[in-house]
């Protein structure tokens, strides 16, 4: 026999049996008006208008809350059922039930067109792919290409050639791009070798070694006394790239603080994990001024100074072999200036 009153459990279950629509209610409109009046009152007259708005909002808010919680308070919700006449399909007949009289959407005849569903599926995937591609390709290009294209060459004005004393080493510190600030600061070991005869005429010769270690790119330091110990003050050149600081130094070689690679004064590797000699800067003389060009890689150097024979290679990153079988690991270098 049915219990007189449903147990809490079945009552709880019954909540799920039908949709729980809140009854239609107009009170939220009044509530909204009340809020607007409060806000307007805050600008015009907080003491009077806002209070009126607060009263309106409170009254209508209460009524709204009463409506919304009608079900919770156990009142039956009366919702006027929607009345809409059935649209008749065909002449005076409604459509047959879905499980009778075959498919509502007849299958295409043999050799007929592609079914509509298949067409929509293909169109969605195809159009989605096209749109996705149109968006992805330029965005991915923007993420990747600027790192490789239009890499600018920085020419660095290093000051008067005559300020470099013959056969003296300098540690030169300069900015490759002043607009970038100190993050573009680089250092090179520079020696004026005097002149060398080339094609029958005398041209200036400089040894300009990049201090970037060829192991993993740390800054190598000159091993030897410099500056005040030598009694030689550092000098400053003023070029187009800002000041260039020149510290006279007497190096026995160069050493890297990170992992201990050692190089002789021509940049040949003498110890440690570096894979080749130190890179060198190309240079040109313009109106008696020394101009640094881009760097190139060097496998080894035979001889010294103006008579040195330099085995040159295209610029490679630190840790990359430029000669021997290991060079085959790096067949394609990214675009470089």
């Amino acid at each position, binding site marked *: *026999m049915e*219990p*007189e*009153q449903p147990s*809490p459990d079945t009552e*709880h279950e019954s*909540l*799920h049996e039908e*949709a*729980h629509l809140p009854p239609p209610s107009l009170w939220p409109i009044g509530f909204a008006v009340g809020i607007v009046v409060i806000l307007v009152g805050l600008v015009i007259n907080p003491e009077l208008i806002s209070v009126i708005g607060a009263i309106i909002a409170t009254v209508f808010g209460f009524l709204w809350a009463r409506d919304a919680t009608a079900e*919770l308070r156990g009142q039956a919700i009366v919702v006027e059922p929607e009345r809409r006449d059935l649209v008749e399909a065909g002449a005076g007949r409604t459509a047959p039930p879905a499980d009778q009289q075959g*498919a509502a959407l007849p299958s295409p005849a043999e050799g007929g067109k592609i079914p509509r569903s298949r067409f929509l599926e293909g169109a969605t995937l195809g159009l989605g792919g096209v749109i996705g591609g149109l968006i992805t390709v330029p965005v991915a290009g923007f993420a*990747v290409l*600027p*790192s*490789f294209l239009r*890499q600018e060459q920085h020419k660095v004005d290093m000051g008067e050639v005559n300020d470099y004393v013959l056969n003296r080493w300098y540690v030169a510190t300069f900015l*490759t*791009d002043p607009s*970038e*600030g*100190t*993050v*573009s600061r680089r250092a090179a070991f520079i020696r004026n070798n005097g002149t060398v005869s080339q094609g029958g005429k005398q041209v200036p010769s400089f040894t300009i070694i990049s201090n970037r270690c060829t192991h*993993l*790119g*740390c*800054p190598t330091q000159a091993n030897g006394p410099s500056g005040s110990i030598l009694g030689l003050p550092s000098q400053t050149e003023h070029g187009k790239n800002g000041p260039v600081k020149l510290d006279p130094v007497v190096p026995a070689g160069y050493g890297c603080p*990170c992992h201990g690679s050692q190089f002789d004064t021509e940049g040949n590797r003498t110890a440690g994990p570096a894979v080749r000699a130190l890179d060198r800067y190309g240079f040109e003389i313009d109106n008696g001024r020394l101009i640094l060009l881009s760097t190139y890689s060097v496998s080894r150097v035979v001889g010294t100074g103006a008579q040195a024979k330099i085995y040159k290679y295209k610029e*490679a*990153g*630190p*840790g*990359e072999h430029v000669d021997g079988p290991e060079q085959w*690991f*790096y*067949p*394609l*270098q*990214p675009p*470089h*200036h």
Partner: protein
Amino acid sequence: MTLRRPPSRAEIRRQRMEDLVTYPLDWLEERSGLVGGVRYFLFRNVPSDINWMQTLGSAALTAFLVQAITGVILAMYYQPTPQGAYPSIVNITNHLTLGWLVRGMHRWGASVFIILMFLHMGRVFLFGAYKYPRELNWIVGVLILVMGMMEGFTGYLLPWDQTAYWATVVGINLNGTAPFLGPWLAQFLRSGQEISAATLTRFYSLHMLLIPGAIMALIGLHLYLVIRLGVTSPPWSKEAAGMEPADAEPTPLRPGLTRPAPRGIAAAQAEPGGRE
């Protein structure tokens, strides 16, 4: 036939209170299924003999959430420019109230996250929890570990002091020595031939947007697979697979574990009652 006495006032009041709590939940559940979803997600059956080792995954997840939250807050004060990065770090650490704590949480939490991932990985390995059918989840976990390490690499540059700068120089050049594509990868990471302001903003973007997004997506996949496949028993478990008594009723297996489930359109068409 049982006649029930009418409920007392206290019982009615109690019922009212319960309705007050359950009504909003019912409202939410009816419209979203979220209550059931959360219950399915959190209140799962697990083997009875799991132990504390199996909380390492949740611990790693917690560490990641700490990183995400503290990172978002640090991003409110950090400036990813060569001129502003280090001063903003100094400002966070020394001047802003509790900045030292949040930055410390992020900095040390990074190590905690990696360590917990390794411990979690060790547990999964030693328990054999990577075996069929959970191989894919091992792979997803390895990807999360790799992404976590990329977070460490990109985050290390952001203080923009000498340690950060030269460690990143060495790190990028290490990548550059990889055969064939190494030099290209290094140039992509540097955003050009040399480390510059663009490198810093690039690492910042990777560190706080791209990689965390990827980690969140992978964690979602990881958790989905954990819930779908269930938690493994420890190797010493009596409940472990193959340990059931011989006369036990064979438990029906879900489709997909031992026999392939019918899938997709073919399955729908083969459904009983479907139109032939």
